[in-house]
């Protein structure tokens, strides 16, 4: 291959696995990252990564994993990418094992596994309770190897601003900003891969890292990239409230045997989803409500269900001290189990001053993950046009999108410990699709000058704004609004009102004045530069939610409490227009298994029947 160059924007698990793969194939890679890649948000993932090895002889298999993932996502996800991901999962783990990732071990020295939400199997391999950090470091080490060999170049502390395109619309580079001195720079390439993570920061007090604003996808959306299923936002049931953010208390606490409870009340009753009426425990004793409502999955029901039940209990006035917190209790666990979740126990202790080994933790739900993201293609192996299309490519030719910033793998609700898997899988898939794409394109440079001029102009305009509004205060209003109206329970009146208010904020944003106009590490300017595209994504999420008149996975409306496959088994597609996003729909690819209603109350181990699955499936890894 003639020396072709690609740009990877984002250095989390997805970006690094893609860069690693490309480096090993001799492709020259420029990585652009807001932070040192080793500090990316992937470090926050705690509990583990799923792979159906059947390590505990429970009859587990990759197809059961795929089925549970499809079912966990309430059948909204396209099925071919999930099937390939789950079949590839054991290979991915073995690769990470060879690369030295310090997974927890059995006595014999083999990989250990724990249970996670939405599954009845021990399928989650882990490194203590900082698995994301350890996986990221392992990939960072491999990428550093290619960096030392001269194949990878890093542009850290740089923000992606704009995609450069050629005359036929293909992605041919990016305009970036150096955060240290705000200078703009052009990086040209033959393909661009976005791996910029989620957008949790749009919601006030999420579990996400500071940089997870979604601005990069927002900018691309404004340049014509389609955005899919934006309305599906995962709220994590167990986090600890703080003044600056909500800190995640991993599902692994429950995977190792942690139990959720509130003080019981013999005088109250509650209805289960199948119509039974239960007494709300016994006054004066802990009431383990999830275990009673969902006898089979108990504390490990999927996150969307878990959160709604916690909210329901709290709305009945049964939260801790009548508030909106419940207890997550690990105080009964053995020393050996506590050791496996030591890092989250330490974190709880550091931030609250209380020892979870002795007292139950007080936890609260918070926005955690975006199932939606850039629309990307994923032709299945058996599709006749498989080799003329490119997996993980957006509607913009040459622009790929991977990791939390794509929409592919989780449908309406993500299962715990599937995010790390989907990030690495998508990264490796893109790592083999991109070289194939490079072979098909002509050497034509993009219009870098035009892109740079637009950004220079925008910079000047933003710095010259001299109004009374403070962008950080506008952000607080936006993010509070989204938490109030666009998280666990949504109503059409609330969503309509939210759209109006976002539009008002968009007007007020024109009237900001920057408290800092300096040229060095000016975070006020940098944040203001991101806020515009954040507002556009807020509209995408809210409008998608308003239109979707059903309840599916993380999207719940009391006025439409049931899933509606007849009208709503379809993928939401948002396209940019200055007057607000245009919403259209694409069909969901349910070619292997037919949608059924989710049920987590019974002990039926899934026996999936995948119709028409190719027998000679060649895995991408």
């Amino acid at each position, binding site marked *: 291959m003639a020396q072709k160059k690609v740009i990877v924007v984002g250095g989390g698990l997805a970006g690094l696995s893609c860069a*690693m793969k490309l480096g*090993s194939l001799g492709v020259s890679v420029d990585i652009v990252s807001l*932070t*040192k890649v*080793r*500090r*990316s*948000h992937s*470090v*926050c993932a705690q509990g583990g990564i799923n792979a159906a090895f059947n390590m505990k002889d429970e009859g587990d298999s990759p197809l059961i994993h795929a089925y549970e993932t499809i079912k966990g996502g309430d059948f909204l996800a396209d099925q071919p990418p999930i099937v390939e991901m789950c079949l590839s999962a054991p290979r991915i783990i*073995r*690769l990470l*094992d*060879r*690369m*030295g990732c*310090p*997974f927890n*071990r*059995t006595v*014999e*020295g*083999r*990989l250990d596994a724990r249970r996670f939400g939405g599954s009845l199997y021990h399928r989650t391999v882990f490194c203590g309770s*900082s698995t994301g*950090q*350890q996986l990221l*470091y392992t990939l960072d*080490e*491999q990428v*550093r*190897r290619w*960096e*030392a060999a001269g194949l990878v170049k890093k542009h*850290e502390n740089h923000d992606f601003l704009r995609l450069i395109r050629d005359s036929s619309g293909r992605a041919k580079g990016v305009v970036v900003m150096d955060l*240290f001195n705000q200078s703009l720079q052009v990086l040209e390439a033959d393909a661009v891969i976005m791996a910029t993570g989620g957008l949790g920061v749009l919601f006030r007090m999420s579990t996400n*890292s*500071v940089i997870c604003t979604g601005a990069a996808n927002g900018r691309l959306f404004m340049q014509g990239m389609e955005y899919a299923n934006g309305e599906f936002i995962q709220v994590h049931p167990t986090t600890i*409230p*703080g003044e*600056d*953010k909500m*800190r*995640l208390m991993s599902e692994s606490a429950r995977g190792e045997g942690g139990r959720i409870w509130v003080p019981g009340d013999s005088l109250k009753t509650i209805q289960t989803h199948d119509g039974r009426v239960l007494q709300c425990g016994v006054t004066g004793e802990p009431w383990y409500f999830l275990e009673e409502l969902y006898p089979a999955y108990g504390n490990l029901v999927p996150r969307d269900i878990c959160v709604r039940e916690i909210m329901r209990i709290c709305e009945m006035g049964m939260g801790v001290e009548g508030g909106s917190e419940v207890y997550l209790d690990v105080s009964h666990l053995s020393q050996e189990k506590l050791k496996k979740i030591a890092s989250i126990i330490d*974190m709880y202790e*550091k*931030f609250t*001053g209380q020892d979870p080994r002795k007292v139950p933790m007080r936890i609260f739900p918070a926005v955690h993950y975006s199932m939606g993201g850039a629309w990307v293609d994923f032709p299945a192996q058996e599709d006749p046009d498989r080799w003329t299309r490119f997996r993980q490519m957006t509607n913009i030719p040459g622009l790929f999108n991977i990791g939390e910033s794509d929409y592919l793998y989780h449908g309406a609700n993500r299962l715990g410990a599937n995010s790390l898997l989907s990030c690495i899988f998508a990264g*490796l898939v893109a790592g083999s699709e991109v070289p194939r794409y490079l072979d098909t394109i002509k050497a034509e440079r993009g219009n870098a000058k035009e892109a740079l001029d637009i950004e220079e102009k925008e910079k000047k305009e933003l710095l010259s704004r001299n109004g009374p509004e*403070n962008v*950080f205060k506008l952000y607080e209003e936006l993010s509070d609004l989204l938490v109030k109206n666009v998280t666990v329970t949504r109503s059409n009146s609330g969503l309509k009102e939210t759209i109006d208010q976002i539009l008002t904020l968009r007007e007020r944003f024109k009237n900001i004045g920057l*408290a*800092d106009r*300096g040229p*060095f*590490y*000016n*975070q*006020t300017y940098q944040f203001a530069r991101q806020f515009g595209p954040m507002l556009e994504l807020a509209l995408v999420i809210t409008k998608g939610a308003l239109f979707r008149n059903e309840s599916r996975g993380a999207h719940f409306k009391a006025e439409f409490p049931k899933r509606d496959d007849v009208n709503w088994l379809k993928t939401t597609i948002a396209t940019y227009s200055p007057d607000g996003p245009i919403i259209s729909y694409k069909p969901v690819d349910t070619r292997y298994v037919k949608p059924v209603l989710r049920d987590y109350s019974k002990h039926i181990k899934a026996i999936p029947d995948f119709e028409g699955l190719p027998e000679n499936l060649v895995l991408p*890894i």
Partner: protein
Amino acid sequence: MTTFILKVFRGMPGKQYWEEFQFKRRFGANVISALMEIQKNPINRLGEATTPVAWESNCLEEVCGSCSMLINGRPRQACTALIEPIIEKTGSEIITVAPFTKFPLVRDLVVDRTVMFENLKKVQAWVEVDSYHEEGYGPLISPEKQEVMYSLATCMTCGCCSEACPQVNDHSPFMGPAPIGQVRLFSIHPTARVKHAERIQVMQTDAGVGSCGNAQNCVKVCPKNVPLTDAIASVGRDTTLQAIHDLFGLPERNP
């Protein structure tokens, strides 16, 4: 008192100064939430309009290593620096915040720690695998070994150890404790150990373990309790053995 004061050492290289900010005391507040307050209301204690303080942060859960700074003179992460326990401990409502001094200053509390990542390149801190194809599992690793590996692998390259180390300074090429921890980590994994002799050769230079003065500040400030002094002792032993081996011209030491 119902308020506290953040006294920030800020500015550009060569032009640093102290500026004070006053806040209401709130349960759960940390240094980060105070800095966020300044962004929304950039007024200093004297009531003058000022620019928001620049600082680096990301995860806010003490796993990313971004928000290192000197808080009351001690290198640590700002996210776990909760205001109330600090006031309780010092008995003072004034908390000083300053950038690290062992790295080039960018602005206010932001320093450039690129050198730490360059050091990881020098010690080849990776496992050299043949390919990224399906090749089966890695070597078996006992739970005891995994535990040691994990404790070393939690190093988040935050730089607290270098900041606290008297041997890391302008006049010394010493890499600091963090990369030595990584040399120890990669001496444990059977595949990585193949490169151990090469890493030890780096450790034999002035930048390596011989420049450690045994002050042991690194372990005292490490937010992740990485066993840095154990690593330094182990790597130190290996450099001595390598030196003896080099002296007598013996064949490569068997990994």
